[in-house]
């Protein structure tokens, strides 16, 4: 790692100001992606702005929706009785991220801001139609994830929380890359009174929805309804782990398993 300056602001506006005023500065939450990136010298920021001292970013609150503070670690979401009761699929998703040590440190805000194409949370956030709350505004999931590691966040904007509406039913299924435990393909399915949402991670350069599956499942929320729906391989990822056609195949398989999980 190259040396960097380290800031630990204790107010969100101060953090936002540091982020815009220091050229080449980066926010660090749990650091589960950033620290390996620094160690490989894929990034050499001049300064890190540590979010851990900011007030009000940690914890889970109840209401018409479940709101999870950006600095809440995966382990806390996985173990939350509230999340397990209201959106069990989201607790299950959190329990599948990385390994216990990664779940102790990694945060929901960090995962969503980073928007890794194979991360789990983007599937849950898009699948549930969540709202990303930032220091400046609120952004719908459908407008937030813009592609490979790219989001709608502006410079100096900091995620403070994610707000999840409560589905009638939801499920997440993931085919793990065996070494990294990232999703080779992960599918989140959520049924609401006004329809079904299906979000896929791992298969392409960013999380995406599958309208034909959403329509079929809105008619009949059963794995058989989507068994014949194939995903176009155009734009899907081919790499050392899997070819695009295999990923396309896995989308249907994981979507069926996610519906099964939702039906409990």
């Amino acid at each position, binding site marked *: 790692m190259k040396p960097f300056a380290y800031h630990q602001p204790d107010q969100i506006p101060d953090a936002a100001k540091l982020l815009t005023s220091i050229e080449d500065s980066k926010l660090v939450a749990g650091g589960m992606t950033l620290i390996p990136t620094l160690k490989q010298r894929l990034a050499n920021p001049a300064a890190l702005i540590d979010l851990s001292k900011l007030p009000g970013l940690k914890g889970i609150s109840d209401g018409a929706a479940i709101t999870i503070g950006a600095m809440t670690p995966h382990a806390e979401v996985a173990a939350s009785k509230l999340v397990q009761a209201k959106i069990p699929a989201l607790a299950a998703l959190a329990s599948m991220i990385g390994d*216990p*040590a990664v779940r*102790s440190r990694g945060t929901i805000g960090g995962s969503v801001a980073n928007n890794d194409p194979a991360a789990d949370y983007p599937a849950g956030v898009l699948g549930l139609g969540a709202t990303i709350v930032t220091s400046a505004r609120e952004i719908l999931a459908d407008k937030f994830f813009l592609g490979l590691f790219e989001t709608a966040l502006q410079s100096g904007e900091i995620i403070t929380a994610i707000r999840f509406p409560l589905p009638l039913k939801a499920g997440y299924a993931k085919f793990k890359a065996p070494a990294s435990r990232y999703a080779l393909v992960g599918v989140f399915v959520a049924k609401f009174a006004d329809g079904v949402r299906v979000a896929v991670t791992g298969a392409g350069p960013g999380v995406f929805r599958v309208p034909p599956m959403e329509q079929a499942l809105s008619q009949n929320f059963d794995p058989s309804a989507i068994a014949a729906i194939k995903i176009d391989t155009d734009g899907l990822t081919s790499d050392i782990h899997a070819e695009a056609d295999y990923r396309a195949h896995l989308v249907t398989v994981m979507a069926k398993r996610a519906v099964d999980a939702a039906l409990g």
Partner: protein
Amino acid sequence: MQISFTLNGRPTTVEVEPATLVAELLREQLNLTGTHIGCDTSQCGACVVHLNGLPVKSCTLLAPALDGATLLTIEGLQGAPGSNRLHPMQEAFRENHGLQCGFCTPGMVMTAVALAKDKPSLTEAEVRHGLEGNICRCTGYQNIVLSVISGAAAMHAAAKGE
């Protein structure tokens, strides 16, 4: 920068560069070499320590995160006097031959202790899920799983004074 934390029960203050990893700080500055660095890419788990009671990979933790925190390393584990002061989980690894070369063992034990903290009776599936972030290249995991199941029971028996 100066950071102060509790290390294995003792107040500790050190001067570090912000870009120092906790695994480096422990091994090179504080001479606690029980924490091992295996892959150095947060995959293998040989460097697991407990930060405020939670298992974390010290090769993927910046030293500033320690400021004000409580850190427990493998050196800080201990059992009852008279049992060679092995922690019940360490004793279980010895009894069950849960190691061969031993390189991964400090991380395995630290992950296992965290996993067993609230669970006296662990299933094989729970142990295997709990050890996903710890890699062993010798044992094939069978005896490690046995060690963790029996170590968890022993930890809680010891806590009850049995």
